[in-house]
């Protein structure tokens, strides 16, 4: 069993609250329209797409924050498509998620120590204090930050706490959902380098969701391109950049403004 994730014909529809009539129920909107792919152990895969492509929904389905309405997701051989919360709990440690907005994903009333340590306690880890220290070391934050609250950190530091919380659980898989899109280029580069190094050092399997192909290129061995809830391309990143097969991928690539006045837009 080499594939950590096996996703086949994944479908998901959500209630469309924007079209909800004043009284009554909202119509359902199909977000994911039958996706199939696998993620081998140890691979870093990029998931890219525009707004409304369904990339974040796919991520949330993979870590089972959302329940798919069709198809299946297997994680390490276990079918997790419709598992209930109790059955999922022992598995939860093994797939972790880093969120886009660290301000809303870190409980404003908990200290950094508690944010990283409480999930560990929940899963019966021993030596929690030492593990929290080590996680902070890993992400390059001073140990003295343990006493701080999220609002006392900068954006880049908060995102590091999010990463520390995920890796402290010693997971097999991490899902990173647009984790650098809110950051300035300088902290963006720092966080990306950190993630790259952690993947190498800890042997993680990583899915990296982004709207930005340039970021994907640096980090990911393989790239899945989503468009309107369907996979339009799923290939090694180098191939994809050298010769994009799908028209949408080509458009996407050409539209990226390079920091180079030599690039000409027709």
């Amino acid at each position, binding site marked *: 069993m080499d594939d950590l994730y096996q996703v086949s014909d994944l479908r998901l529809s959500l209630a469309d609250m924007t079209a909800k009539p004043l009284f009554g129920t909202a119509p359902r909107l199909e977000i994911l329209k039958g996706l199939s792919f696998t993620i081998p152990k140890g691979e870093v895969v990029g998931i890219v797409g525009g707004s409304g492509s369904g990339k974040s929904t796919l991520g949330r389905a993979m870590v089972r924050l959302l329940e798919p309405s069709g198809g299946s997701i297997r994680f390490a051989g276990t079918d997790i498509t419709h598992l209930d919360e109790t059955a999922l709990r022992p598995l939860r440690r093994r797939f972790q998620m880093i969120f886009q907005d660290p301000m809303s994903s870190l409980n404003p009333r908990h200290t950094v120590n508690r944010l990283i340590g409480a999930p560990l306690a929940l899963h019966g880890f021993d030596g929690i204090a030492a593990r929290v220290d080590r996680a902070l070391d890993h992400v390059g934050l001073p140990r003295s930050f343990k006493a701080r609250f999220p609002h006392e950190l900068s954006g880049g530091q908060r995102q590091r706490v999010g990463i520390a919380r995920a890796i402290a659980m010693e997971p097999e898989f991490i899902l990173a959902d647009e984790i650098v899109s809110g950051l300035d280029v300088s902290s963006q580069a720092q966080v990306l380098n950190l993630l790259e190094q952690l993947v190498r050092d800890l042997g993680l399997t990583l899915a990296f969701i982004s709207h930005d192909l340039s970021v994907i290129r640096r980090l990911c061995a393989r790239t899945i391109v989503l468009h309107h809830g369907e996979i339009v391309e799923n290939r090694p990143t180098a191939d994809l950049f050298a010769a994009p097969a799908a028209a949408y991928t080509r458009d996407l690539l050409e539209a990226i403004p390079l920091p180079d*006045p030599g690039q000409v837009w027709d």
Partner: protein
Amino acid sequence: MSFLSVENLSLRIRGDGARLLRSVTLAVRPGEVMGLVGESGAGKSMIGKAILGILPRAVELSGGRIVLEGQDLGTLPAAERRRVIGAKAALIPQDPLTALNPSRRIGPQITDRLVDILGWDRARAEARAADLLAEVQIPQPARVMRSYPHELSGGMRQRVLIASAFAAEPKLIVADEPTTALDVTVQKQILRLIRQMQERHGTALLFVTHDLGVVSKVCQNLTVLYAGAVVERATVGAFFAGPAHPYSRALLAATPKYTDPTGSLTPVPEAVVAAVRAEVVAMDEAEDG
């Protein structure tokens, strides 16, 4: 001959006196496209806001002046200043989703400036609006003018805002991160549109952005800011061939470039940040005497 000149502009936060802009000097020629670049907190959008007279209440002008076509805006009475700005300058805002009033139809949101401030008659203003909508490639302009903002997509709304900015044939347009909220494919179309319109109308453009890639596509000249101070001024050609200031160099190195697969990104080194910060502090000390 520059028709917009910002001279030694300094801004502070009212009350605690924290500096937002430190003696910024800037000159824009008619028809020029000038990029204002910097990371968050660099004060780049504050310059545009100061020019357009829409600074937040908590910010005060602590020095310098803004001259638009020979008129020092600071010397004009408030109502007159608003009228001058309304007639000569315009804004393309960042977020097309919040920049159109959801309870008013599109048409009046384009024509209101022409009718109320410039005194055009309504029929002429509406004809002008329809022409502009056609110019920004909106199909069925007459129908769009009767719709409400929520009936249009994000890209369409940004086109409406561009049309609206050009309505009064302003001499200067400030574009404040106009494509940050859009997908890259839409961004490309919008950037090209802004550039086309600017060339056709001969308008000067002050383009505020954090994205060096966008600057290289749109601007002729650029000004790099750090902590409210100008770090570097250059033509786009010279800058991307090799920035003069170490901070600009570091910023360029930290910008991802997908055509360059092996080169890993270099975060802005701490030493560079410390050096540029020291420069800024030195400026402050010189100013405080």
